[in-house]
């Protein structure tokens, strides 16, 4: 992602928890708009966000957010960002409108403005009718929404959303994704969406950074990453022996393959002569091809390729 004015940049950032290296010399840039931060659990996504917020001091490396050095100006950075944490969090003993207004005041808004914005933002996230209820009585989905509201109340230039659809029912999830998409596309709010859910990222973001084991595995515009450097096929086969042996045979020939939830294998054939090559390899392995269909590369392929997933 070669952005001349990146919203966030990390230069050789290493974060350690004791002996465990959560971020390992990460160098990355996040452009404006909506950027997805993808990765399996434990990849270092949340650690990266917490380091950018100044919660964790990296062992080495430099981070810049909105042009400001995180180490030198953490308070100035936090004044311009909103953070929606992954886990359930609120300030106890307050109603929703008190909570959100209080967060606005903490972010520097005058009391009257903070209260007015609290009402507006609560309506925006769909909690208008429940804004005088104590936050502790909220359902999981409502708690996700109020976390978004408190992150938005001071009108940040950049939003960090850490697993925003966690624990939400399908309808609530769709609504949350709509809100995120609206913020990024219609309200000019830059956001970094950390998630392990590929459809969430694909629906809301134009760019993606894929992390794995504390490193950047892939980064760039989603469309560009999905551009085929070969062909992708959906394959169903019949074999006398072990399927894993067939997969090893394909991999030895330079093909990438990974199983899907359905009884189908997605195979990436680099270069030219895709289907022909695949039939030849199947024949040489003594495997019958029962189904072969050219497919469009998805973000799942990008992700699987980046993290080396089978």
């Amino acid at each position, binding site marked *: 992602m070669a952005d001349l004015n990146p919203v966030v940049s990390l230069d050789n950032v290493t974060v350690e*928890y*004791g*002996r*465990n290296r959560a971020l390992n010399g990460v160098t990355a840039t996040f452009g404006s708009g909506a950027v997805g931060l993808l990765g399996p659990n434990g990849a270092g996504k949340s650690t990266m966000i*917490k380091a950018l*917020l*100044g*919660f*964790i001091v990296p062992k080495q490396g430099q981070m810049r957010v909105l042009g400001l050095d995180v180490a030198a100006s*953490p*308070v*100035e950075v*936090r*004044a311009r*960002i*909103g*953070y929606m*944490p992954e*886990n*359930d*969090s*609120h*300030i*106890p*003993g307050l109603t929703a409108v008190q909570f959100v207004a*209080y*967060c606005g*005041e*903490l*972010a*520097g*808004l*005058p009391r009257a*403005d903070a209260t007015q*914005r609290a009402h*507006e*933002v609560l*309506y*925006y996230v*769909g909690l*208008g009718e429940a804004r005088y209820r104590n936050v*502790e009585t909220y359902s999981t989905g409502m708690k996700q929404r109020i976390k978004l509201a*408190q*992150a*938005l109340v*001071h*009108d940040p230039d950049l939003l960090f959303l850490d697993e925003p659809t966690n624990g939400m029912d399908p309808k609530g999830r*769709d*609504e949350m994704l*709509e*809100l995120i998409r*609206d*913020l990024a596309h219609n*309200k*000019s709010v830059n956001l970094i969406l950390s998630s392990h859910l590929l459809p969430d990222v694909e629906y809301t973001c134009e760019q993606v950074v894929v992390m794995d084991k504390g490193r950047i595995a892939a980064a760039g515009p989603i469309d560009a990453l999905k551009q085929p450097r070969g062909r992708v096929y959906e394959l169903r086969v019949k074999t006398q022996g072990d399927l894993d042996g067939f997969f090893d045979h394909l991999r030895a020939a330079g093909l990438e393959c990974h199983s899907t939830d359905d009884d189908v294998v997605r195979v990436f054939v680099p270069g030219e002569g895709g289907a022909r090559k695949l039939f030849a390899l199947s024949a040489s392995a003594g495997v019958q091809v029962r189904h072969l269909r050219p497919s469009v590369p998805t973000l799942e392929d990008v992700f699987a390729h980046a993290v080396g997933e089978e």
Partner: protein
Amino acid sequence: MPIHDQGYRRYGGSRAGGRAWWVMFTTGVRTMLGNRRWIVLLVVSWIPFVVRAVQFYLAANFSQAQIVAPSAATFRDFFGQQDLFVFLMTITLGASAIAQDRRANALQIYLSKPLTRLEYIVGKLSVLIAFLLFVTWVPAMLLLVLQVLFAGNFTFLKANAYLFPAITLFASIEVLMVSMCMLALSSLSTNSRFVGILYTALIFFSKALAGVLFAVTRGSSFSWISFGNNLALLGDVIFRVPPQFETPWPVSLAIVLGLIGLSAVILERRVRGVEIVA
């Protein structure tokens, strides 16, 4: 696609930096003043003041009441009477100060806003300190003013001019020590009830231990074991009244300062946006 009643607007108004601790202070005070039980406690905590005010009035206006005329010891005793209210307020307000935030994961909300960890601690501390000063320093100072008003002269004040700094110094030490200790204990747990019990146990256990050692040694040289005794001894020295214990006052001062320092170290370690389990 959901339809929302109102859209999201960008904010074009003013922003002020560096006042987050003040927001925490004003919100904390406002919240407590909306609590009826707390108001009752505040009112009851001023009853000793009213009694002392009547005493001062009688002593100033009736020669027969000279036996209750105020002295430096009167002010020292007044602080002793307020100890119960200081204890109750510290338990009620302080035990939940950080423990509740930790239980609700509120620290990461606070610290994702433009405030530092120090500002967060100052914000929490300021609410407790303000209420504790309201039941110690404020009534003690008012008593001094009332004495002048009732007597109609400055004779007492001139003879005891050191009372102004003495009241301020002792109230500051007492309030700072109990507030810091309670806040540090509160940061160690997510259960405010447990914090309250722990604080009470520490106060009474140390007092009981000092009592046992007094009985065994027939002397009060081990009074420093009790948190309360150290404060009491410093109070005696500051108000220039005979000390209650044999412990040298610098020892008590060192213990009080040590407790404040230890509390600061605990708070520095516990107040973080993320809990790291390495």
